[in-house]
Structures are given as C-alpha cells and as structure tokens.
C-alpha cells in the first residue's frame, strides 16, 4: 500500500512509533508479513492457534509449532481512541484509533485501520488485512474496511 501521508487519511506513517522487535519465538510471523502474508502460530500437536506467538502451547504443552496462513478477514472486536499524546512519539498523530480484530479463524490481532476515521469505527465492522511496509525488515498487519 502507499504509505505516503495524505490529508484526511486515518492512517499515515508514524516514524516515531516503536517498531516491533522480532525474537526467536515470533520471527516467522514477521517474515511472512514481508511477503504480504498473515500467519498465526499453530500447535503441531493439537492444531490450536496461538497468538501472539509463544514457545509453549497452553492447551497441550507442546513446543512444536507450524505457521498457518490466515484469510486476513475478521471483524472489529474492540477499539480505543488515543486523544492525548501520551508519549512524545504520538505528537501530531492524535487522535488515532487502535483496534482489536477478531480474525475469522479466531485469534485477536492488535492493529490500526487504514481507511476508517475513528468516529466511524464500530464493534463488528468487517475488515481485511493489508500489510504495510515500515522498513526493509519490518512490515506490520494493518486492516481496511471490507
């Protein structure tokens, strides 16, 4: 997607926001996003989906994992709108909405919506994942209305 800031757009690049710092436990999640894919950790033993990724399956205790491709479809589960620039990095970006999306497959993903102003966000709104490249090494999963 085009990340250039456009007037009136609900999402634009926020260069001072913290970047994700991948670890051994979640690197495949971030690698897939560089290819434009949203994957979620799947337990290789009981097939349970685990997000955010973690070393051990809370259902069966297995350490073995695979990564399952998501449809990228989901709906808004909850959201908050930050009005006060609580951190200097947020200066010039408020108000902005942070959204929890319940993927069709079940997991909850924290994100921002690219094309919905915060006044129009509603719980239950159907959305679709759209990857956004922040650096050569990091893309993050954003969502748009569908």
């Amino acid at each position, binding site marked *: 997607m085009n990340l250039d800031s456009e007037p009136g757009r609900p999402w634009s690049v*926020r260069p001072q*926001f*913290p*970047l*994700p*710092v*991948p*670890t051994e436990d*979640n690197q495949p999640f971030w690698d897939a996003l560089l290819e434009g894919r949203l994957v979620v950790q799947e337990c290789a033993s009981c097939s349970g989906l685990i*997000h*955010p990724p973690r070393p051990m399956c*809370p259902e069966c205790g297995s350490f073995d994992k695979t990564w399952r491709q998501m449809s990228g479809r989901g709906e808004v*589960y*909850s*959201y*908050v*709108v*930050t*009005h*006060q620039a*609580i*951190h200097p990095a*947020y200066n010039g*970006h408020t*108000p*902005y909405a*942070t*959204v*929890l999306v319940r993927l069709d497959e079940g997991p*909850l*993903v*924290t*994100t*921002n919506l690219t094309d919905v102003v*915060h006044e129009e966000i509603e*719980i239950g709104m159907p959305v679709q994942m759209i990857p956004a490249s*922040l650096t050569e090494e990091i893309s*993050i999963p954003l969502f748009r209305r569908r």
Partner: protein
Amino acid sequence: MSTALRNRVAIAGIGETDYSRESGRSEMMLALQAIKAALDDAGIAPSEVDGLMTWRVDNTSEAEIAANLGVKDLAWFGDINQAGNVGAALVAHASAAIVAGLANVVVIYRGMNGRSGARYGRGEVTGRRGQGGSAFTEPFGLLTPQHGLAMTARRRMHEFGTTSRQFGYVAVSEREHALRNPRATFYGKPLTIEDHQESRMIVDPFHLYDCCLETDGGGALVLVSAERARDLKQPPALIRAAAQAGYAKGRAFVDTSAAALAPRFWEHAGVAPSDVDVAQIYDHFAPFVVFALEDYGFVERGEGGPFVESGGIRWDGGMLPVNTSGGHLSEAYLQGMNQLLEGVRQIRGTSTAQVEKVNLSFVDTGIGTGALLLERAS
C-alpha cells in the same frame, strides 16, 4: 480452599506521608517516613522489624531500608512482579510468612515519586520499545497501562450496556468522599457528573476524570500475629482472607482476574459479598470499579453501572460505600497502598467517611489480582 490464614495475622500499624505532586524528597525518604509512622502507630520499635516487602516496581532496596531502620536480622523479604496491582498479594505473602513462623514483624511499604519522577501516564515506566510481547501492541499505539484496559472497558460496554455516564458516577462518588478527607489531592474541589462527561478524552472511552492521579507519597503497613496485635496500641485489623491471582485464563478483554479469584476468595473468607460493610477497590480507571463490583460478585454482570449510578457506592446512603478516602481518582495514587490504609481505618473507625458498624472491610488492589478481607476483632 485453605483457611489456614484466617484471622491469625493482623495489620497492627499504618502510616503514610503527605500526598503531593512534588515531594521534594527521595523515594527512600518517603518510604522511611511512612514506615516510621506505621511503626509508631503500632507501638513497635524499628529494630524489631524482621520482614520487608514491596512492589517490584518500587525503586528502593530492602537492605537499605533495613539499614536505616536498624534491623538486626532481616529474615523475610521480597517483592512481587507485575505492576501497581500487588498490594493485597503482598499482604497474603507476609501473612503466610508470619503464620509459618518465618518472620514476626513484617512491614509492607511503597514510596514513589509518581508525579515528579517517572510517570506511568506517559509510558515512562511501562513502555518497552517494541520488545517482547509489546511487539504486537506498541507499533499500533498501545503504550501505557490504560490502553489495554480501555480495550476491555469498550468491549464490556458493548456486551453489557454500561455507559460512560455510569462510569462517571464512580468518579463523582469518590470525589464526594475526598471532600471529607483533608489528605486528599482533590480535597475542596467538587466534581459533578457534567464535569466528568465534559472532561477531555484521554484514551476513549476514558475521560480525564476516569483516570487516576499521579502522586508523590509513601505508605506502609505493619503486620504481626493476631496474638501479638492484641497487646499493641491500635485495634487490630484481622486478616480474614487474603489471596492473589496473577493470571487467569478467561475471555480476552472481557474477564478480569477477579472472575477466577472470587470463588476461592469468598470460600476462603467463609462469607458472601453481601456480608461486606465497606470496600476499597483499585481504581486506576473508574470503569474498573464497576467491573470489580461485578466480577467479585457484589452485583451481577451488567448491574454495576446502574448500581453506581443509583448511588450504591456512596458513603452517604450507598448499599456498599467504595473508596471512602477518595481512592486513586481523588485521594492519591499509591498503587493500592492508600486503599489498604483506608481499609484498616474503616475497621478502626477512623476514616473521614466512616461507615457505621464495620465488621468486614474489603480491599481489592488491582483488577482482581489481589483481594483482602479485614475483620474487626471481637
């Protein structure tokens, strides 16, 4: 469920400093002033202390505190991880140590320059620069404790129909209590429901007056065996039950830990929520008083909003007065310590918003992560 702790330990002394926005003293000084006041209150010499416990986020060192107090032998010390929400859990740990004979005089303390020092409200304490689990939240603008909590508040508003205006009655009720408390930050400053509703949004659905203060101050409790407490200066506040819950599997962004803690806590206590005379509830954000009332079983889910709106938590006529000193919203934010102190005052009969005939005084110190039931000695 074990009842091994029931009424075998007491809070025998309480102490605090003044509450301000700029203390002009070190956190070590604040902690020591509060500890000294608590020991004087109990009538115990500082050198008798053999146990010290505090929050993991406290910046002081137990050894340094012990050196200041002239402790002879620090037999029991420790802290509990997480954040501000561990006050009642510390009481549970200290009580277990006393019952087990591992320590005799345990002081629980907190000293913090929460306003003039590192500020929670600015992510200065909790921001993790995208590392660990925060890789999945901070890049999207969730940086402070209130962000995740606001997600829960929004979802519960959606599911149970609770409104911002109802949350506002938590703030208004607590402010009424603070108007009776000269120690409170907002003493002499009334708040109306319109003031709450018109106050600016911080993180929607949290208005300004849904959010706790940031405070410089210190507080301390002295715990001893119930037997010892009988011979000390103050009427003992017996610990009828104390429990913690560090993590609870439940519905994400709906259930608080109280939903898991409550059944075993009440079983341990051997009483029902309806037996409680007065409650102090961790109010970092006003909506969580409503959620705690629901998840501890004081009211049914969805009834917390109407309950506070109809005056249920007011000292003046409420069925269950809550946060009678003004709480974190209007007295001070000492991470549950000021609520522990007020829970003891209600047992002693010394609150500035004293409830009549208090036998059982309940304290929650953080979204269900720890709870305490204090009982008046017969």
